[in-house]
């Protein structure tokens, strides 16, 4: 990754465009772009409001509350935090191996989470851009527009997500704030009725997931040049990997490769993640910039998530998804595997893998077993790592002799991808914004690059009246030259409608 366009030489002479907040992502993000009088781009930065304060919020709590509490980090992937915290506290309790029923129930919950999250992102947050075009009319470039124009696609998206939520409900005990996973195991297995209920529709979900892979492949074929070039950059990568090199979204060792695909570390024990990963800070961002220590802060940034997982594993352990992985890697001489929009294709391959895994687990009698808990020798600390929908998620806790959490450190997927997302938006700014008059459609290109990573900025606060999108072009003297806004009531003000430069 390069750092070109991170910092302009004379920012005081440039005008500033802000996209605040970035839309169709979870939480609150902001992009600022500095332009000169000829609209040449000099600086692009993605700023993200992180989970500041959450680690503090956990401190002082009894450890057994943590897997439930951390779900409140996020309205989109609470199960990932639930499971990462549970894994960390398994280690703290000295549990080295869960019972077969406990591990399979947790995996089932996790695959349900992957399914619902990936379905939401592809069908409802990204498909409007992909199906209607990146600069299409903002009035139709949304899920309701998709429903109107492609009702079958939208309906499959709704029902796939609903199925994933039902898997979560039956494994976690309830829809929200489930308690199914606890330190040392789980507190429930699947009943015969629940198993039968989920089996009823699973083959339909497999078929629809295969269709989804076909949709994104078709879009790549139709828009090959644009999709391959859009926000493209070379990057190192990291993911969890199973002992035999297979994709494993729930557990494994860390695998990292450099920008040329050469191994940096493999099957690394994540309980000492700090030996290989550092966290850099920059004065202009609240969010840290993780890096591989062996490469340093400049060269050590990397990306995580579906694209890294699908391209870095040796194989996917379910047949249909593995076949699609091979097709993805072979497509157009491997071009899609390095494209930023390749994230969407990889995400759909993972959704298929998750559905196949749910099917296999539903046919495994262990999920109805009754041996739910394991025990071990109590430790002071625990680290849990899981491959969440957006990438590698690290939870790290220290617990005192009174069973209270005294330290917590979380590195979430979106933080790992911080530098990668910044690089992607800079590439898109160079490709589409440099030297031209900026429109809402062009600014949406910047958002499309960010959305490819499906960032989870996780404010999970959504009260009525919040979450507007405001884009302002500000002159060097601070004067607002032009602006466009839209809010939850659908009020949209386009560029040029409001005021002339004063």
């Amino acid at each position: 990754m390069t750092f070109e366009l991170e910092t302009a030489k004379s920012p005081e002479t440039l005008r500033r465009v802000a996209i605040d907040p970035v839309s169709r992502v979870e939480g609150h993000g902001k992009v600022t772009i500095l332009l000169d009088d000829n609209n040449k781009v000099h600086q692009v930065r993605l700023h993200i409001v992180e989970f500041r304060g959450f680690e503090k919020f956990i401190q002082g709590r009894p450890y057994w509350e943590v897997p439930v509490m951390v779900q409140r980090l996020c309205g989109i992937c609470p199960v990932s935090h639930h499971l990462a915290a549970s894994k960390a506290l398994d280690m703290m309790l000295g549990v080295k191996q869960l019972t077969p029923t406990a591990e399979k129930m947790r995996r089932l919950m996790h695959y349900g989470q992957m399914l619902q999250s990936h379905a939401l992102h592809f069908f409802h947050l990204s498909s409007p851009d992909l199906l209607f075009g990146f600069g299409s009319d903002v009035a139709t470039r949304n899920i309701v527009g998709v429903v109107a124009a492609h009702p079958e696609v939208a309906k499959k998206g709704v029902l796939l997500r609903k199925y994933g939520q039902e898997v979560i409900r039956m494994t976690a005990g309830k829809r929200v704030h489930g308690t199914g996973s606890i330190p040392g195991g789980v507190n429930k297995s699947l009943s015969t009725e629940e198993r039968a209920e989920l089996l009823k529709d699973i083959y339909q979900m497999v078929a629809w997931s295969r269709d989804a892979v076909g949709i994104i492949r078709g879009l790549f074929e139709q828009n090959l040049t644009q999709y391959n070039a859009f926000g493209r950059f070379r990057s190192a990568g990291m993911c969890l990997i199973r002992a035999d090199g297979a994709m494993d979204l729930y557990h494994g060792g860390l695998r990292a490769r450099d920008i040329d695909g050469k191994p940096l570390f493999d099957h690394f024990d994540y309980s000492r993640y700090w030996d290989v990963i550092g966290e850099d800070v920059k004065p202009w961002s609240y969010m840290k910039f993780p890096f591989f220590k062996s490469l340093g802060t400049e060269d050590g940034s990397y990306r995580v998530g579906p694209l890294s997982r699908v391209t870095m594993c040796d194989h996917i352990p379910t047949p249909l998804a593995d076949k699609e992985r091979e097709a993805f890697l072979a497509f157009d001489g491997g071009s899609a595997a390095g494209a930023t929009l390749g994230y969407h294709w990889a995400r759909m391959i993972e959704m298929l893998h998750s559905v196949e895994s749910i099917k296999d687990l539903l046919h495994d009698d262990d999920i109805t077993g009754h041996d739910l808990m394991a025990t071990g020798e109590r430790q002071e600390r625990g680290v849990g790592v899981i491959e969440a929908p957006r990438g590698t998620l690290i939870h790290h806790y220290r617990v005192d002799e009174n069973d209270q959490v005294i330290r917590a450190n979380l590195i979430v997927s979106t933080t790992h991808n911080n530098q990668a997302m910044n690089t992607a938006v800079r590439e898109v700014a160079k490709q589409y914004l440099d030297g031209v008059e900026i429109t809402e459609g062009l600014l949406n290109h910047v958002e499309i690059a960010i959305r490819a990573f499906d960032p989870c900025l996780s404010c999970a606060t959504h009260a009525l009246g919040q979450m507007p999108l405001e884009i302002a072009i500000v002159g060097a003297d601070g004067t607002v030259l032009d602006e466009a806004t839209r809010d939850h009531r659908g009020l949209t003000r386009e560029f040029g409608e409001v005021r002339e430069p004063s």
Partner: protein
Amino acid sequence: MTAPTLVFGWGNPSRGDDALGPLFVEHFTSLAARHPEWGKVDFLTDFQLQVEHALDLQGRRRVLFVDASLDAAPPCTLARIEAARDASFTTHAMSPQAVLKVFADIDDGEPPPCWLLAIRAERFELGEPLTAAAQRNLTAALATAADWIAAG
């Protein structure tokens, strides 16, 4: 068996007044248990509204959505809502009007009559309890909802 009435509150219980939606459902569930004359009622909560919640509207006779609001006049406002194609799709969290619109499009029919009970909120900071004002507004909102459900 789907109950004819659905009460659906949403929000993050760990973010101050954003907890108003789920807290309302918790209290109203207890209240409904003492009023069998209200008929069978289903209660749901979630962090935020999303497309799949359109499926929760199927087979209902009426629906009450409940959320914290920075805009509502205190203590709360109750208003009938209709399906609308608004811009809330630009976030992970949808408006109830947009959920109704998804229902209408995928179900190819009119959604059931729906109301939004917006409870005035003040602060949404992580780890904070309800503000005193929100606590008072919650009490008023429960009375408003009791009148709504009793009116049939």
